[in-house]
């Protein structure tokens, strides 16, 4: 259970950070000795372990001058075994100090939480300062990959998915954060090891992907393969050719050669069946939703995260691709595990890709049993942001769930339909000069990102008329959670994003649902010519300014958003200054406002954390242009500490 307590996070305070004021002040008292010394600063510092405050041995510390690049722009020293370092002759100006040490995550002066930024510091003439740098221990994760006989598997790729990559509800995954998927390769003993990990939840996977083409493609030149790009076919060996492919009946199979794929050979048995390893997640499942999440804290050295791969007998999936004008030949067909469909995982866990032949038929010759989605699409040619989006060709899409059993799947009908369109209008409330429609085109092109990550990436064009009516290109059905980056809070000069609604529903709180064959025509995006800013101060329990506080602002209507993730523009957060003050741009609305320690800024959007915060938060109605001030106290979220 989550529990909230009011507390001062004194243990997490940075031991000593010398502010720019301190540095300048110490310089003031020395005017009469100026002729004896050059007007430059002296910085003495110590590198300590953030958890134990013990000195870090072997730390390398670099002082960089702000804005300077190339040779001579930085000075590097090796700290003593006591963790001390000295920078002499530091010229006046803004500097940053970075520190690294074996076994620690990179850090530096002014870093207040794991993964947080270093803070530049201003050095006055002749300043002398004593500073402290805290480094957090890296986490590591290691294990061994074995085959079904228990023998080590050498040279296979192992991927590590961080919590950010996992997503939550379908359609919400992109709003969770950037995807980071480091990978490594097992050595001759089947062992792998990830180092330099930040605390968090991880999933270990051995991915595999098979590109499968009709045998008639054996002679295809690269131009023919390039032509398939609009339906998403990219060959692992690049567009330059087919590379090495294996023949299974009337199908050519290419074990993926890309960075994240298994390169295990397959076995074709005398009875005609093919055996290969399916994607496997720790602790030994082929479904990511059954994968074990490994929670790492700073300094954890997890080992024995071992995976035993079990080969599956691969089955066939056959079907036929048709469109509005009959069978479609030469179009890529994508096979996605059900867990990956409509999420960022489409990119890495696509199980196979093939191409339809002359009569529209397609075949996957090597598919491990399981739940999949077959997808196919054709995008309009001129799908480039900034161009006229009224392409003659419609977007075609198909999405068909299939369950592959031990008998395989035959005769799947995959019927492509025209995409649906999202239409609406932009409403400018205010008197500022209207921005040109083209400016809003960029804004809207990222506003409605299809959940079909593989198909669309960021390629989507939206047309905006002079009357500020807009329409997207044809889109596949699904949940469209607006994923506006924060800079689009001000999409055009003098205009600020305020709301997006459809049929009166707030799209920031629940995604727009695009149904097959039905356009959405009533989206209203409201812009205002006044910025709304929340300012305030964060104090500790004694009422003193809290130096490492952060403010979080999230919608008061928790029922609506809790299951759909928390889109960036539904919530706001910012670190406070060392004197506890904060200022952040927000959208008008009903909010809950709370203060946390900055160390929690990276993970406060977890469901349980928000629920816990909500119980303690201050309710606040923010009205356009009113710029409220709020005094807050830091709450510690104890139950959530890993």
């Amino acid at each position, binding site marked *: 259970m989550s529990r909230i307590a009011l507390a001062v996070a004194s243990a997490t305070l940075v031991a000593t950070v010398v502010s720019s004021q301190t540095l300048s002040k110490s310089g003031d008292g020395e005017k009469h000795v100026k002729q004896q010394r050059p007007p430059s600063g002296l910085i003495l510092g110590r590198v300590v372990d953030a958890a134990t405050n013990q000195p870090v041995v072997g730390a390398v510390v670099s002082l960089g001058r702000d804005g300077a690049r190339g*040779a001579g722009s930085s000075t590097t020293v090796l700290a003593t075994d006591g963790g001390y370092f000295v920078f*002499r002759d530091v010229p006046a100006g803004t500097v940053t100090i970075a520190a690294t040490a074996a076994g620690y995550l990179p850090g530096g002066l002014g870093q207040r939480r794991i993964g947080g930024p270093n803070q530049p510091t201003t050095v006055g003439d002749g300043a002398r300062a004593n500073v402290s740098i805290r480094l957090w221990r890296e986490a590591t994760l290691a294990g061994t990959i074995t085959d079904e006989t228990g023998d080590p598997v050498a040279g296979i790729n192992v991927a590590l998915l961080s919590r950010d990559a996992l997503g939550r509800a379908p359609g919400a995954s992109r709003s969770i954060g950037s995807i980071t998927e480091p990978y490594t390769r097992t050595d001759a003993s*089947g062992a792998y090891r990830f180092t330099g990990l930040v605390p968090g939840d991880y999933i270990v996977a051995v991915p595999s992907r098979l590109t499968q083409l009709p045998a008639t493609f054996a002679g295809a030149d690269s131009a023919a393969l390039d032509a398939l790009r609009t339906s998403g076919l990219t060959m692992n060996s690049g567009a*330059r050719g087919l590379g*090495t492919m294996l*023949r299974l009946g009337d199908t050519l199979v290419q074990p993926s050669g890309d960075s994240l794929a298994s390169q295990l050979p397959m076995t074709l*048995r005398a009875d005609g069946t093919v055996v290969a390893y399916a994607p496997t997640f720790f602790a030994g499942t082929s479904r990511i939703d059954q994968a074990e999440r490994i929670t790492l804290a700073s300094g954890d050295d997890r080992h024995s995260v071992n995976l035993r791969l079990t080969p599956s007998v691969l089955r066939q999936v056959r079907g036929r691709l048709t469109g509005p004008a009959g069978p479609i030949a030469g179009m890529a067909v994508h096979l996605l595990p059900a867990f990956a469909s409509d999420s960022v995982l489409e990119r890495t866990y696509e199980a196979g890709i093939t191409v339809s032949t002359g009569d529209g038929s397609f075949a996957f010759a090597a598919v491990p049993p399981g739940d999949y989605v077959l997808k196919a699409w054709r995008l309009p040619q001129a799908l480039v942001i900034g161009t006229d989006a009224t392409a003659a060709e419609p977007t075609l899409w198909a999405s068909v769930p299939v369950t592959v059993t031990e008998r395989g799947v035959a005769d799947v009908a995959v019927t492509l339909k025209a995409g649906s369109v999202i239409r609406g209008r932009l409403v400018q409330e205010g008197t500022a000069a209207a921005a040109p429609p083209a400016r809003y085109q960029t804004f809207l092109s990222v506003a409605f990102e299809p959940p079909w990550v593989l198909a669309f990436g960021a390629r989507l064009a939206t047309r905006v008329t002079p009357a500020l009516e807009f329409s997207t290109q044809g889109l596949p059905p699904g949940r469209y959670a607006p994923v506006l980056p924060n800079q689009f809070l001000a999409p055009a000069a003098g205009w600020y994003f305020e709301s997006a609604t459809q049929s009166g529903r707030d799209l920031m709180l629940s995604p727009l649902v695009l149904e097959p064959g039905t356009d959405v025509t009533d989206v209203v995006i409201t812009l205002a010519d006044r910025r709304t800013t929340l300012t305030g101060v964060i104090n500790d329990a004694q009422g003193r300014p809290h130096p490492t506080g952060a403010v979080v602002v999230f919608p008061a209507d928790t029922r609506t958003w809790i299951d759909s993730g928390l889109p960036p523009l539904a919530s706001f957060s910012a670190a406070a200054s060392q004197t506890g003050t904060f200022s952040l741009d927000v959208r008008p609305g009903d909010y809950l406002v709370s203060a946390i320690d900055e160390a929690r800024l990276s993970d406060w959007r977890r469901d349980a954390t928000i629920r816990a915060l909500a119980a303690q938060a201050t309710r606040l109605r923010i009205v356009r242009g009113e710029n409220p001030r709020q005094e807050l106290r830091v709450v510690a979220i104890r139950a959530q500490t890993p």
Partner: protein
Amino acid sequence: MTTRALAVLMIVLGASQGQASREPQVREGTAVLAGIVSGSDGKPVPRAVVTLGGTVTLTVIAEPSGRFMFDRLPAGRFVLSASKAGFLTLAYGQPTPGRGSGMPIELKDAERRIDLRWSLPRAASISGRILDHSGRPFRNAVVTLQQRRTVDGESRLVTCCGNTTSDANGLYRIAGLLPGDYLVSALPASDYRFIPDVLSSFGEEMHQTTDEEVRWALREIESASNANTPASPRLPDPPRGSTVSYGRIYFPGTADAARAAVVTVKNGDDRSGADFSMALLPTAFIRGRVLLPDGQPAANASFSFSDGWSMATMRVGADGTFERRNLLPGKYTVIARVSTPSAPALWGSREFNLNGTNEPDVVITLGAAASVSGRLAFEAGEASPNPGAVSMSVMLSPLLGTTPARVGADGTFSFPVVDPGRYRLSASIPAASRGAWLLKSAMVGDRDAADMPFEVKAGQAVTDVVVTFTTKATRLTGTLLTADDQPAPGYYVVVFADDPAQWIAGSRRVPAPVRAATDGRFAFTGLPAGSYRLAALTSVDTSDLANADFLAALKPGAALVTLADGENKTQDVKFARVR
């Protein structure tokens, strides 16, 4: 068709990578290859990866019983190889892992070879612990193995066998090793950016903080922070700490590869306890000037900097100055060159042995550069390629500071600036225009520099080099026969020059060994005219041929064969009924 449930195959399309694989072909036939892969103890190796190379390329995983099968094969020539974690990769008919090659298998249509058996030796491993200078575990060190090999006639350290990273306890283990002699070394992890690198200025100079500096700085700060008393006079600055860096450290704890301990492993050895400590090494800088023969600065001269492993080329400043900092202990060579179309080229060089001591005032005075020039000639015969229309090039090897010379329209070529040394010379014609032309000789005086290195001395101009192409390739073929005139399969055939002066590694006169096929046949093409010795051996490695003692021992028992220009000769080799 066999009734046993065997692992079968996949036909691979597209023989090799690259442009040539654009139009792969499906190859199918009726021949069969099958067998069992076992370990050296005779027990089957379950699920070994068996690959078939040659006419088609195929991969299978053997059954848990060690059995494998390739069916539907076309007629052709194949080599089989098996690998498995914990074992050494070995080809069928290969006498020793890592040496020589497998015995090619000739298959006819519908032929069935289902009794192939060979055993994989166990792989060795080396393990140990990396510590820091104070005896604590050093984590994330990249541990690498190197072996001494002869490259271009010189003994060099070659990185091999993969690498690993020390764990949180400093422990490492590198498995899958061939028997042999290894040097174990370690560097901090690759993302550690303070390792000097000759090729870039990426490594930053790092000063060691001294206790004296820390005490001084503390006193300075205390006096400054006491606001009520006038600031005390500044204390004298203590000297800065010396510059240091992590560099490659070899087991048992030396930065000098020559002092490294050799770790010898035999088949299946698990060698543990190769523990050693990382150490900080003193770094130094080299600073100086490049001067023209008249003492004026050689502005913007080309400037090469080498540590014997890699070389960086840059330009000196407009005032002729140069500087390289953050240099680990070792031997460095600096070469400066000035080459303009209008004047004779200039050249100068210096060598340094650094060990933490700076070289702050180096002067390199340029003198006349050595050069090599000559022309191409085509023997009468087919129409020769036109040097003006086809981009032909001439190369000096080793490629030290020279780039291939383009051949002019008149057939001449020139290397205006050549570092003193010994070179071989070769020439190439683009494949599209080559036709049947091949290099016959590259004569420097009476020496064929295509095979025999020639000496270039400082300042020397080597002229009148004649590079001759011919369309008449020699061909030496034959069959190995037993005393009963039966084909003797599987032996290695070695051909080498009769004259010991021509026993030079990489020379065309000491070609790589050829493995006779199952029908006993072998062939060598393109040997230069001359006298050769021909021998058949049960086992040989290319590296053996770089060893003059090895060839001298072979020579007395080897058959003498003389090839004339363009001659096509057959020389069968019959084994005597001895032993």
